């Protein structure tokens, strides 16, 4: 594929607002996970909760979109000059030539959960004030962002579970390459809600401790929330030397199980292989792999097998979910932003919370930060339904 310019990016997660606290947390190997005290949830688990989301107001004209998910998006949009960059992008290319492709798994689901607690005792009706289209509906996050950023190109939400906000790069890339648009706002937002906290708990997939990807004693995920956005544009002739580019994207399906990964990671391997082919790169060209690395026994085993079978046992890799938690539909975009920071700052972030690496996992998992030239990063995102996506990001040189 023709590489695309990532002309702006931002991320807000439990590590902080914007790229600066995100980077410093990675440099200090600090985790943002804390014991779950979210809403009225009574589960013995850790979460990556973003501070101050409920204090965030939406612009008056968009108040109908008010819910935790869109508040988190608004909060993130105001960091790193992203909103200004998006407005400038729309002015540069024309509003109709900029698309919006965002990932989420649960959008404003919390709003519906709260409405179900406030049903009319006689009729069972939901409260009058409950807005479906602009909160609960999966599209609400893309609709909010397109209105907020004043863009009029094609818009859609990708909701392919935990691969959603990696796959949006694919949708945007195809439309840019097909000539429908010249640029796109991509990324994702997922916010804490009871459905995911109680749902993963019911599947016995969430840990009672902070998640420990690739640890011999790993026993599940820590759910997090995040909003991460990037501007993807047609590549100019002479990109800035410090620019980060999207070089490749690969997508596949497991065809195996709704909530368990393929045991040998065949789908994951095929997505990584497809991303390498799209980028016209060999496995040896990848300096660091940002793993999906959720911290469940089966996910990490499957991914490690896939990575080793394609890259061998020496390519450094780690999961940043010990720091951020698993931010579900926002994970792909959050980890794309982290990958961009790794490239700009020559960082391979060691995985936090992992104390003893599972000796049966053969991928080269790193626990300590490494500093060296990072030219090309591969970032993995896999989800329920057996949906897989790998991105390859790199410097302009």
């Amino acid at each position, binding site marked *: 594929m023709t590489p695309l310019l990532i002309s702006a990016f931002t991320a807000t997660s439990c590590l902080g607002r914007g790229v600066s606290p995100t980077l410093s947390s990675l440099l200090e190997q600090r985790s943002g996970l804390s014991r779950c005290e979210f809403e009225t949830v009574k589960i013995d688990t850790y979460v990556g909760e973003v501070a101050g989301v409920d204090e965030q107001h939406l612009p008056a004209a968009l108040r109908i979109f008010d819910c935790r998910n869109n508040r988190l998006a608004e909060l993130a949009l105001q960091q790193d000059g992203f909103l200004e960059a998006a407005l400038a992008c729309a002015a540069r290319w024309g509003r109709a030539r900029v698309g919006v492709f965002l990932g989420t798994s649960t959008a404003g689901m919390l709003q519906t*959960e709260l409405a179900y607690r406030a049903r009319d005792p006689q009729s*069972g009706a939901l409260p009058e004030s409950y807005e479906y*289209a602009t909160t609960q509906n*999966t*599209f609400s996050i893309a609709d909010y962002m397109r209105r907020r950023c004043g863009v009029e190109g094609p818009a*859609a939400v990708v*909701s392919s579970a935990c691969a959603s906000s990696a796959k949006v790069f694919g949708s945007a890339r195809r439309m840019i390459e097909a000539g429908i648009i010249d640029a796109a706002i991509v990324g994702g937002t997922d916010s804490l809600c009871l459905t995911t906290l109680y*749902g993963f708990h019911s*599947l016995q997939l969430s840990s009672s401790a902070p998640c420990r990807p690739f640890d011999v004693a790993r026993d599940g995920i820590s759910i997090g929330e995040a909003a991460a956005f990037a501007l993807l544009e047609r590549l100019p002739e002479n990109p800035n030397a410090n620019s980060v580019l999207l070089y490749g994207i690969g997508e596949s399906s497991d065809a195996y199980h*709704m909530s368990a990964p393929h045991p040998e990671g065949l789908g994951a391997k095929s997505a990584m292989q497809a991303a390498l082919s799209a980028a016209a790169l060999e496995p040896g060209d990848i300096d660091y792999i940002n793993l999906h690395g959720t911290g469940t026994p089966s996910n990490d085993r499957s991914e490690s097998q896939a990575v080793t079978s394609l890259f061998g046992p020496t390519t450094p890799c780690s999961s940043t979910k010990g720091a951020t938690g698993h931010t579900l539909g926002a994970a792909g975009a959050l980890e794309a932003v982290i990958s961009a920071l790794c490239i700009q700052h020559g960082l391979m972030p060691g995985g936090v919370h992992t104390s003893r690496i599972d000796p049966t996992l053969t991928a080269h998992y790193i626990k300590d930060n490494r500093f060296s030239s990072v030219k090309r990063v591969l970032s993995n995102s896999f989800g329920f339904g057996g949906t897989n996506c790998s991105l390859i990001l790199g410097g302009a040189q």
Partner: protein
Amino acid sequence: MKLCAYIDGIGILGPGISDWTQAADLLSGRQPYAPAATVLPIPSMLPPAERRRTGRVVKLALAIASQATSSAGADPALMASVFASSGGDGHICHEICEALAQPAREVSPTRFSNSVHNVAAGYWSIATGSMAGSNALCAFDASFAAGLLEVLSLVAVDPRPALLVAYDSEYPQPLHAKRSIPDAFGVALVLAPRRGARSLAKIQGTLTDEPADSMADPQFEALRRAIPAARSLPLLSLLATDCRGRATLDYLDVARVAVQLEPCH
């Protein structure tokens, strides 16, 4: 900028509509349209254990996807797919929210794993063994046109046949009062980059600011307005008659998708 592809297969299910042969008779006026509750077949393509777990949206999506691929004579295992729906499984969403409103908050693990928006895409890949990429989109009422743009750009950029599956189903009360989709409706199209033996029509899609076409038949117009996937009906009407002409499909507040068809036979 126009996106071009060939329509090789069609699948459809809806209120009083059971397949494309029948739908073509209704849409062309050869038979009168008599709406009746949508009948969803049991997805025999899934293993029995999985079959029991599937809800209405999965039954709907799998049925129309297999109609479309078999009429195209195409191997679904080799095809990338785009699933477009304005909501996931509304019944599961309701059951989870109801459970979470109770003190015990007991969410069923199966319901939770089937609550994802890409549930139909997941089961389709399991049923067909397809390891090709698959996307699950939502654009509220614009979901059909969003899916069509996605699959047209997919075929343009990665020139292999691909499958579009657009479908919607109802929420039970009390959500139904807030999102009043009346029944299940879905349409699936197999699109190919080159004309083949089974190609029905060449389709060219482009963005436009013209208003969306409505349906002349009041019952079809009611269906078009009531269910997002049925925003496809003006396109299906052309396919049901002589596969020729232009239709403008509902999309966003700021844009519609115009399609131009030419017959292949």
